[in-house]
Every structure is written in structure tokens, then in C-alpha cells.
């Protein structure tokens, strides 16, 4: 298993790439808030696109679209599929 090399930040995914959420680094409130929206470890997540200057990320998760701020997206670790 070379899982370590596949673990990257959500912000490092290219447009169109997808993976599974491994962990969210942040305060308890933030992690819970994301969990309430369905973003928990093990969830499949796909980056649709982002704006100019690598701004917020539009993602697909649980069959629906979400926009996550850049700072937030950089706290989510994913395992590249």
C-alpha cells in the first residue's frame, strides 16, 4: 500500500479529479458543520472546477454540488482514486 503518496489536499486535485475524504483538519465546529453537509471521512468527492487565481472549489459530493472556500478546501485531505 502506497497510500501515503496518494494523500493530498483537496486544493491539489485537478479539475475533474476525484477521491475519498480521509480527514478534515480544523476546529470541532468546522468538522461537524461539514459532516452535517455530508462531508465526512470516507465520502467520495470530485472537484468540478475552480475560479481564477485558484479561488473557491466547486465540488460534487453525495450526488450534489457544493462550493467550498479555498481556505476550507485546503483543510480537507483526500485519497486520490
Amino acid at each position, binding site marked *: 500500500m502506497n497510500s501515503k503518496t496518494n494523500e493530498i489536499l483537496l486544493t491539489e486535485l485537478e479539475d475533474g479529479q476525484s477521491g475519498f475524504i480521509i480527514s478534515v483538519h480544523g476546529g470541532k465546529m468546522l468538522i461537524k*458543520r461539514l459532516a*452535517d453537509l455530508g462531508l465526512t471521512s470516507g465520502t467520495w468527492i470530485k472537484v468540478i472546477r475552480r475560479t481564477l487565481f485558484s*479561488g473557491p472549489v466547486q465540488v460534487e459530493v453525495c450526488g450534489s*454540488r457544493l*462550493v467550498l472556500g479555498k*481556505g476550507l478546501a485546503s483543510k480537507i485531505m483526500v485519497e486520490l482514486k
Partner: protein
Amino acid sequence: MTDGKKINIVLAGQGNSGKSAVFNYLTGLHQHIGNWAGKTIEKREGTLFYNDYTIDVLDLPGIYSLTTYSVEEVISREYITHQKPDCVINIVDSTNLERNLIFTLQLMELECPLILALNMIDLAKKKGITIDFKKLQKIINAPVITTVASRGSGLTRIIDKVIELKNEKKDHKINKYGREIEYCIEQLSVLLKDINIRYPVRWLAIKLLEKDIEITKLVGELDPEILDIVKQLCENLEEMHGHDSAVVIADERSHLASQITREIVKITPGRKISLNEKLDAVTTHKFTGYLLMILILGGMFYTVFSFGNWLSGWFDTIFKDWHSWWINNVGITFFAAMGWSAIESVLALIQIALPYILPFYIILYVLEDWGYIARISFLMDNLMHKMGIHGKGCISFIIGFGCNVPGCLSCRIMESKRERFITAVLVTLVPCSAVSVIVFGLVGKYVGLAWAFGLYVFAMALIFLAGWISSKLIIGEPVELIMPMPDYKTPQLKTVIYQTWDALKEFVYIAAPIVVILGVVIQVINLAGWMPAISAFLSPVTVTWLGLPAITGILLIFGILRKELILVMLAAYLGTANFSDALSPQQMITLAVVSMFYIPCVATISVLWKEYGWKKAMAICVLEILFAILLAGLVKRILNFVF
């Protein structure tokens, strides 16, 4: 009417679930919009008369969970547990079932009679999503009804179910968590049984394990010993799972939702990329997205302003006739003049509301209902972050270009107090339609259109700078954008009309009383003959520092009522609308700069007052007056080199 014929229901659901459409369809014109006691959060209530029954409908705020992130969430759960409505109708977006179910699971924990409305089932079908709602009904042990709220389909079936539920008592389904959590809940439930709180025991236990701030405090006051046990149980959980206990529970709930979704949802992938996908790709693209945004917003402002100027001019001629009628029939006594100034204030309000704000809102809500507004937030998030707020703040700015009043009101969509305030302050600097009358009527007409547009660019740069500075000065962490991206859908006329009507009504309610009172006060000062003294008093600023005629002191005072009065009264004073006779280009630009920034108009001040208290409202006014005077004086001196 007997008591048994009265039913009280609550609508709950996440944003974009079509909850408002359900509310509007059910209650129609029998709506009442107020505030939650002591809060600046809207409370929407309405009544429905159905087969002898009087059904009170309450529309809870659109929220994503029932935890204590926001006031809205606390209000919602308190209402459900304390007021004990006969039934909670959970409106669910069928195209986003999994995320919506997390909220449904939280509602179920509140142990209230529940009906699930699978809304927008038509859109789900279009996307190839089939939902086994009978199975869902079994899983959650509550009626599930498919609806298309925008067409009203399925809504009467909900009401029939509500009446049916009222007459039979049903057991609540309990969602089981993992073994370890269930053990903790059991332990706590025993202890909590004898505590007298108006929340379900199991729910209390879950919230304590989730370390809910409010519930922990509440229980701690009644029995502090329980908290020690909670602490111990949480630590055990954390040891086992390696996460905070709150996260463990939220995680399990989320997994349960996805497990249920897997059981009941079948997706047949579409053969080709849908129109929605294509539209989304173009409108949020790195380049075409921004280009389209400029075109759409530019088109919107152009339409509103050209329509507004036309209608406003038409009103002008009519109101002028009314004024002559008033003078001829009521006279020109002191009281007659006061009476007219009160009427004039109301007319002024109409003259802003109908020509500018109404069409502005209509277009805005069409864009929102279509799904475009969320795209703007996405595109602008990066830039907005430099100002210490996130992408949604951009919406308030756009509204502010039409009128600062609804612009400031719309800041309620921001999550934290800090961001609400920063956004509101910045919105007061956005040149509204009244200011644009001055900029284009004075600078655009007599100095050149390029200068007028230059002033707009200048204003935006200043707003950016002010935002950047305030984000550094006002302490607190910036909130990150978390926003669902809705699918594009055909805007519904009914929804747009309702939203426009609500917004317009709110504008009139807030602005009208203060505008009338201040209109009369200024008229009293005028009739008392104090104006020359005031303009003499202000002349060190207006004449010496700004290089403007002394009369501008008075104009600027009247301008607080309505910014464009500065121009209207200047024309009256000069006896001509050809301003180039009296003012040099340099003076025109200086006057326009002062008018743009010097103070929010009374209606805006009244909103700031209501939302943030009088201290903050006054502080904003004083700061902006000083800032505008300083800035315009500097501009004047720089312009010396140009002209």
C-alpha cells in the same frame, strides 16, 4: 370554531429545498411577516383554511442543521420542542436527497410528528433519479409524499396527511447509532429522566454528547453532576474513535443518511451531458464566467436605470401638478408647508421604490430563482475574501447599487455578526441609484461620461480598500464560504412576485416612518429661517476646504433625505438645470464625490440602526462624513492639476 379544528404546522428544510414555494402556495395572501422576539430574524407565518380546518403555518428559517452554529438553528429547534406544533413538514430537495436526509435525521431526533415532502420530484426524474419512497416511509416511520411545490402538486395530499396524523398518535422512529454511542445515550437517559426540561430525553443525551453549548449550560444549571458523567463518556468515546465525540456523532448521522440513500435511490445515468451541466460550465468558467457576469449585471443595471429614469421623470411631472394643487387649495401657511413636506417624503419614497427598486428586485429574484446568484458568489469569493468577507457578500453589493436599504438588509445572509457588519458598512459606500442620478446628471452630462464612469471605478476601488482595512481592524476569523450550488431551473413567476412583494414591503415599512419624520424636521428648520445661518456655519468646510458655493451646505443636509435632492434643489436654487453656468467641472466632480460618500441616506441609517443599534449607526455616519469631506478636498486639490 372549536379547538379541534385548529392545527398548527411548521415547515422545515434546508436552503434551496423549495420551502418558500410550499409556504406561499399554502398560505397565499394570508401571510404575516414579522420578527422572532428580540431577534432580527424574519418570522414568516400564514394561515390556510381547508375543509373546516384553520391551519396555522410557520415557515422556519432555511438551515442546514439543528446545532448551535447560528441563531436560526437555535430558534428552529426551540420552536419545535417548546411550541409542540401538531406536525413538522420537512421539505426535502429530491435531487439532493443524501444531504437533506442528514437534516431529516436531526428532525426525527426531536421526536415531533413528521411528514416528509420529497420536493422537486420532477427535476429528480429528469436527472434520472428514482426514489423508492415507500421504502423510505418504512425506514423513517413517517409519511412521505412526493411534491412539485412550484406547481402546487402534492401539497393538498400533505394537508390531508396532517389532518390524518392529528387524529392518531404515532410512535416515533428512533435512529440507532453505533453500539458505543447507544451505550452512552442509555446511561445519560437514565440520569436525565427526572430533569425537568422541555426537550426529549434521548435528544438531550445526544446533544450533551455532541457538546452542544446551550444544552450543556441548561443541564449544568439543573444538575452539574451530570456534566461530569458526560465528560467521562465523551472521553471514552474519543479514546475509542480517535475523534471528538461531537464529530463521531455527526459522522455516524451522515453515514446513516448515505446508507439510507443507497437503499432507496437508483440513478440511471443520463446519456448526454444535460443542459444544466453545459450552462453551469459556461457560467462558472474561469473566463467566460466572468465575461457573462459582467454582461448580465451590466444589462440588469442598464435596464433598471433606463426604465427608472423614464418612470421617475413621469412621476416628477405628476407630483409637480399635485404640489401646485396643494398650494392653490391648502395655501402657503406654515402648517400647509409642513403638511406638504410630509406628503413629499412619501412621494419621494414612491419615486425610488417603484421606478428603481421594483424592477431591480424583479430581475434580481428572476436571477436567483434561475440559480445564477449562487454562481456570482462562487466567481467573486476570491476577491471578496480580500475584504474579509466571502462570496455571498457580493450579492449585498449588487443590491446596494439599486438601493442601499435592501442592500443592508440582505447582509443577513452572512453567517457571522462580524461579516454582517463589515458587509453592511461597505454597502453604504456603494453608489445607489439616487447617487447615480447625481453622478450622471452632473459629471456625466457636463464633464464627460468617461469621468462619470471613472467615479464609479474610483468608488469600487475605495470600497475594496475600505473592506481590506476593516478586515484588518475588526477582529475575528473570516468565515469560509460553504454554499450548495443549485441546479439551473426555470424561474417561477409566482415565486418571483412573492419575493419582490416581501422585499418591497419591508423597504417601505422600515424607510417610510423615518423619511417622513426627518422630512418634516428639515422643513421646520427651513421655515424657521435657520438655513442661511447653517450654510454660513458650514462654509469653512464647503467653501474654504471644498471650494464649492455656500449653498451646498444646505443641499447636503437635504441630501440626507434622498441623495438626488442635492441635484434637484441645486437646479431649483439656480433657477436652471444647466449646471455648467454655476459650477466648474472641478466643482462638479468634487460635489459628486462628497455626495457619493458623505453619509448614508436616512432610510439606510434607519436600517443600520435597527440591525446594529444606534451607536454603530451613528459611528458609521460620523466616520463617513469626515471621510467624504477629507477625500473630496483632496480630490479637489488633485484636480487642480488637471483642469
